[in-house]
């Protein structure tokens, strides 16, 4: 039997060979009946070209126990993902030591304080390290003391508290402790009820964190900063320096970044975010509601953009320029694109012949399984299967399905904020005539098509993929590359297939923006054309019959 890497498989071959409906059936056969019924809704054969309609997918539903999911928890979403990248807030995990320990520096959110003297607490891990007596008698006293000790040692401008599973169970009132200590110490202190068991994935934690930041920080600083075109970048976490590259490009275009939620962010940026004139959303899933709330409260319109892929970056820059409707900006953006593109096209030209026709699969959280398909397209690679770890239906099917999404008990546990216009700070950024004119030009506000519209027909879209399903896909499709996270990495690679981590970028990056595209092209070229996979069989394993002959002779 030849090894996987010996077979040259391209997209067309795969499609000719494999009936996705049959494969789906085969996957489901292994499961107990009830599990199969549930998974059937979460595994969808995309039919976009044939019927131009987006199928409904089961998403944001409970994980099936024992299935070997790759999902994380609400605490991980709240503390790790959203609050983790902000450098100058002291984040205290209230709970036993594990949660704080595991979320300590592991997400690669880079940060760059303006000077050596500026605050940066990201290298620290703060925990109340609850012991059994705290569980029995309650941990509020210890939390209070911990906040005091953190204040005495560091004098930060803000402290936030994160509840872990047992804290919710024993009923520590973290919010009242935060209120008391805020009054006592005179700095901003707020808490998150982000116990791991809430919701069905880390997505619930994003929601809780964003609500908290919106309630406790956004709008506290009304200083209007210099800058002709002021935007916020939402849903960008500066993994491997992505936000630095995006910031470089924006600066070059003359666009001012007021705040990033939450990559390379600071408390003051959040406080001042409401002074921007446009919100741009990278990861729709983790933050769309913040954009909605900021529009409602402050009058800032929002658009979906994507800085993953050079074409996507150019398109997003043009969209931002179109929004501001200023010829100077429109021209500048074109100049920047023209300046940056030659180098990108040069590298793409080198890489493409080596990658063309190869296949990829992407199973990553939030927007990454969607956005990275653009980059693969640029070097001629096709995505034959993809899915999200913690998305909701709108991330797959587009925002138009939002009204039809049923809210279940698990989602109802996550607080929805009631937002009204801020009497002092609300300011429409565009007149209604301007908005109409833009819309007439085809400009889309508050819009997101979702992943499925952009994927080919007959591709498999799978929500919350299990380890077993991952194995099946690899066995059947033998993709040239599989994109997922650290938990999947080595299992996939043992099959002789490279796995690109798209959460941590395998400790490389940036991959966003123009320079990022170049990095990614080279990285994927390296991975899908690496010699390592050709050595899986030793010479004597490739042709054992020779030695048999020798023995006979």
């Amino acid at each position, binding site marked *: 039997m030849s090894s996987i890497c010996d077979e040259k498989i391209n997209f067309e071959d795969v499609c000719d060979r494999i009936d996705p409906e049959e494969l789906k059936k085969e996957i489901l056969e292994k499961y107990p009946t009830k599990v199969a019924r549930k998974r059937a809704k979460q595994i969808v054969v995309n039919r976009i070209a044939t019927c131009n309609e987006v199928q409904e997918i089961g998403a944001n539903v409970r994980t099936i126990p024992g299935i070997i999911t790759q999902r994380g928890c609400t605490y991980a979403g709240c503390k790790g993902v959203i609050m983790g990248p902000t450098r100058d807030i002291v984040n205290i995990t209230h709970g036993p030591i594990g949660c704080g320990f595991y979320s300590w520096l592991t997400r690669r959110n880079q940060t760059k304080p303006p000077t050596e003297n500026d605050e940066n607490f990201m290298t620290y891990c703060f925990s109340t390290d609850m012991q059994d007596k705290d569980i029995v008698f309650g941990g509020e006293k210890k939390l209070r003391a911990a906040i005091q000790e953190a204040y005495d040692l560091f004098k930060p401008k803000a402290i936030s508290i994160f509840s872990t599973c047992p804290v919710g169970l024993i009923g520590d009132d973290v919010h009242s402790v935060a209120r008391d200590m805020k009054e006592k110490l005179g700095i901003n202190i707020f808490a998150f009820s982000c116990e791991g068991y809430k919701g069905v994935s880390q997505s619930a934690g994003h929601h809780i964190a964003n609500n908290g930041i919106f309630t406790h920080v956004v709008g506290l600083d009304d200083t209007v900063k210099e800058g002709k075109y002021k935007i916020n970048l939402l849903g960008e976490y500066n993994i491997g320096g992505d936000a630095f590259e995006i910031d470089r490009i924006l600066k070059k275009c003359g666009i001012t970044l007021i705040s990033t939620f939450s990559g390379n962010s600071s408390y003051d940026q959040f406080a001042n975010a409401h002074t921007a004139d446009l919100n741009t959303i990278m990861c729709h899933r983790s933050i769309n509601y913040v954009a909605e709330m900021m529009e409602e409260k402050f009058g800032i319109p929002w658009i979906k953009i994507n800085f993953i892929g050079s074409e996507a970056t150019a398109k997003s820059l043009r969209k931002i320029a179109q929004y501001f409707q200023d010829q100077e900006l429109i021209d500048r953006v074109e100049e920047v694109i023209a300046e940056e593109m030659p180098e990108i096209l040069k590298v793409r030209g080198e890489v493409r012949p080596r990658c063309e026709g190869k296949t990829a699969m992407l199973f990553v959280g939030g927007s990454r399984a969607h956005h990275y398909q653009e980059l693969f397209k640029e070097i001629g690679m096709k995505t034959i299967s993809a899915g999200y770890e913690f998305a909701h239906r709108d991330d797959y099917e587009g925002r138009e399905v939002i009204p039809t999404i049923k809210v279940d008990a698990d989602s109802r546990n996550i607080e929805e904020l009631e937002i009204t216009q801020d009497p002092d700070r609300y300011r429409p950024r565009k007149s209604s005539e301007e908005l109409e004119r833009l819309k007439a030009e085809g400009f889309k506000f508050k819009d997101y098509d979702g992943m499925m519209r952009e994927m080919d027909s007959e591709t498999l879209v799978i929500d919350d993929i299990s380890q077993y399903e991952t*194995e099946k896909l690899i066995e059947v499709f033998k993709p040239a590359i599989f994109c997922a996270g650290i938990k999947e990495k080595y299992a996939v690679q043992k099959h002789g297939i490279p796995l690109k981590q798209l959460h941590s970028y395998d400790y490389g990056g940036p991959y966003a923006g123009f320079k990022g595209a170049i990095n990614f092209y080279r990285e994927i070229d390296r991975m899908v054309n690496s010699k390592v996979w050709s050595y899986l069989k030793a010479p004597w394993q490739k042709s054992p019959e020779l030695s048999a002959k020798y023995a006979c002779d």
Partner: protein
Amino acid sequence: MLLRHTPKEIRERSALTINPAKTCQPIGAMYAALGIHGCLPHSHGSQGCCAYHRSTLTRHYKEPVMAATSSFTEGSSVFGGQANLVQAIDNIFTIYEPEVIAVHTTCLSETIGDDIPQITRKAEADGKIPKGKYVIHANTPSYVGSHVTGFSNMTKAMVDYFAVSTGKKEDCINIVPGYVEPADMEEIKRIAGELGVRTILFPDTSNVLNRPQTGKFEMFPRGGVTVESLVKTGDSKATIALGHLASGPAARALDTKCKVPCEILDLPIGLSATDRFVDVLRKLAGVHVPDSINLERGQLLDVIADMHQYFYGKKVALVGDPDQLISLTEFLVSIDMMPIYVVTGTPGKKFESRINEITKDVPHEVKVRAEGDMFLLHQWIKNEPVDLMIGNTYLKYISRDEDIPFVRFGFPILDRIGHSYFPTVGYRGGLRLLEKILDALLDRQDRDSSEEGFELVM
């Protein structure tokens, strides 16, 4: 400065842990469970715990780490996790077909008080556990002990569930290797093999978490102690437990349950601790120590003698797990280095007295702390710097800020490889440790020396 906010002035803290030198029980239990052949660890609680533990173990070993979770939601937290666990057991045996499911609890399921044996009986009554397959468990609340305690509890569970005494003693010695690397487990087996002793090593993660690349992923690879061997541990002549904290409880449980006498030793890290291990093994098995082992011992001793000038008097800061630190401290003292700061996050007062005893003749004040953290260690270093630091990856921040040579040792090591392939136990392991220490110290000397003092031969 990455840790720019750490002040030199030390204030006692009663509530806030900063930069912990330990993590929680379940990850240790998961690691131990992976050392049973055909076992899928299962985390009973919300799914984040399992995701975190798998991620951290994967980053450390750079190998697949499979485990399942009960995926608690709010409902299960209120009404208990029975339905989740029964469903999980059914799904795991149906889809993944392991021999054993090793369930460990989390702080969530411990706090609501889920009774795992009762739930397992329910799963069995419902026909969810196929004939000849097993579900074992350990209670591992995260608010007690540390990852070492979790390892210890799951290892003890192996005895509680499997060990049987038939009354007929076998010429075999059980070895509980402690919370060490797959390479260390392999090395312990090799040393026993050199002595010609039949052993059962449990848990055994060699060939599980340092597997070859073959082009084929196997969820349950060749390695790990088999259930059959675990059953037989009850008939062995004796048990050697390496590491009081991680291995003591399992060995004592075997003594109580099956009357297998035990010797609890320090981890065989360094010359003297390895000597004691080999000596006890020899006596218990009634064998002679072969020349091959004497040769290895002599080589280690030779390097200590040859390079003594570079070790002598060097101040060292150590952070890690108690069992490792006790042996490592003894080793450093034996080569005339001065371990002056020794910190573990794992609770247990015995640790401090043991280190104090080992370092009583060190000609310098020695600060030791159980239930300490790396913030405190950093403050000590700010007050009086050291020549070398030994500990896990998180020390790299202090190392960079304070410009101190650093040897990675312990758990977790997220940014280097080697630990799962090259042992630090035994005489060969001692040689490797010395090599790493010398590399760090001599590289520093090369970097810092003046041009006229730059040495070609060292």
